[in-house]
């Protein structure tokens, strides 16, 4: 697992939740997972394909999602599947958007697919990723999990150019 590919996602998640909730967040657990992914709540899976490939899963309980949504809307929101789905989706978009901006500016080129939301018992049960980094982020609204599996497929453009010019 390449930490330089994982770090932008961790930094982005930390920044997105800290800035959205206007409160500090803390990484309380970080581990490698070689088992089939087991979802903890509502999960958004985003696939990335290009110079780097893999997927990122943002996973949080419906209660935490509702608290985040209420905080951002500035009003208590009623409990609903749509609100939870929207919230997890938008949070995932913000985390991915911020991290891929950093990776793109570093010279990686790739395509990001829209988030797939898994809420029911069937979603994500068959994920067979061999190696993933799992991060638990403690926020004022509750714990948020990030599961990242990412690897290089191609070198960055300037590295490829350098190799060609040497060769």
């Amino acid at each position, binding site marked *: 697992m390449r930490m330089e590919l994982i770090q932008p996602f961790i930094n982005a998640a930390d920044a997105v939740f800290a800035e959205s909730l206007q409160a500090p967040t803390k990484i309380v657990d970080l581990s490698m997972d070689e088992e089939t992914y087991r979802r903890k709540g509502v999960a958004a899976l985003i696939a990335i394909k290009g110079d780097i490939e893999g997927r990122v899963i943002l996973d949080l309980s419906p209660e935490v999602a509702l608290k985040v949504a209420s905080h*951002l*809307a*500035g009003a208590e929101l009623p409990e609903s599947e749509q609100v939870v789905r929207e919230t997890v989706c938008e949070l995932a978009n*913000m985390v991915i958007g*911020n991290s891929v*901006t950093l990776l793109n500016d570093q010279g990686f080129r790739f395509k990001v697919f829209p988030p797939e939301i898994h809420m029911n018992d069937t979603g994500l049960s068959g994920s067979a990723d061999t190696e993933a980094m799992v991060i638990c982020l403690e926020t004022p609204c509750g714990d948020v999990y990030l599961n990242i599996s990412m690897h290089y497929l191609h070198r960055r453009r300037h590295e490829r150019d350098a190799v060609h010019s040497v060769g």
Partner: protein
Amino acid sequence: MKPAVHREKEIAMAQFAALFRKDNKPVRYLVVDDSVFARKNLIKMIEMFGGEVAGEAGDGLTAIAEFNRTKPDIVLMDITMPQMEGIEAVERIVRQHGEARIVMVSSVGYQENILAALQKGAKHFVQKPVKPEVLYEILRYVLSDDPAAVGAPVAFAGEHRS
């Protein structure tokens, strides 16, 4: 005792002096984002700045129709949306209404995206998650129409122009 979110809202509103048009009327905004959640968040900030929501849209095509219907002072426009993306909507709106003031609001802050939006006529760019103080400064700048301010730097993620 008021709920915590209401108290936070009151405190937040007290931090920002209301923004007005030159005729001293509240600024009217069109909020364009395919996420209802993101729209609610922006609308909360607009209220904090003393503005009015003239309309909402969830895609670029609806944004054009809503712009023509409501003639807002400011458009807050997402980039990645279904049916028609934000940058194309900017181009079409500005082609018809050269005076339109559009601020792009997106999670993705690629330099190419920002430049494309500015070239099509957007006035500014702010990256999500949007900090109220950053958006406030950008709106103040965009509303000022001050020729001396032209060329002020775009605020990227985490930056705050003072």
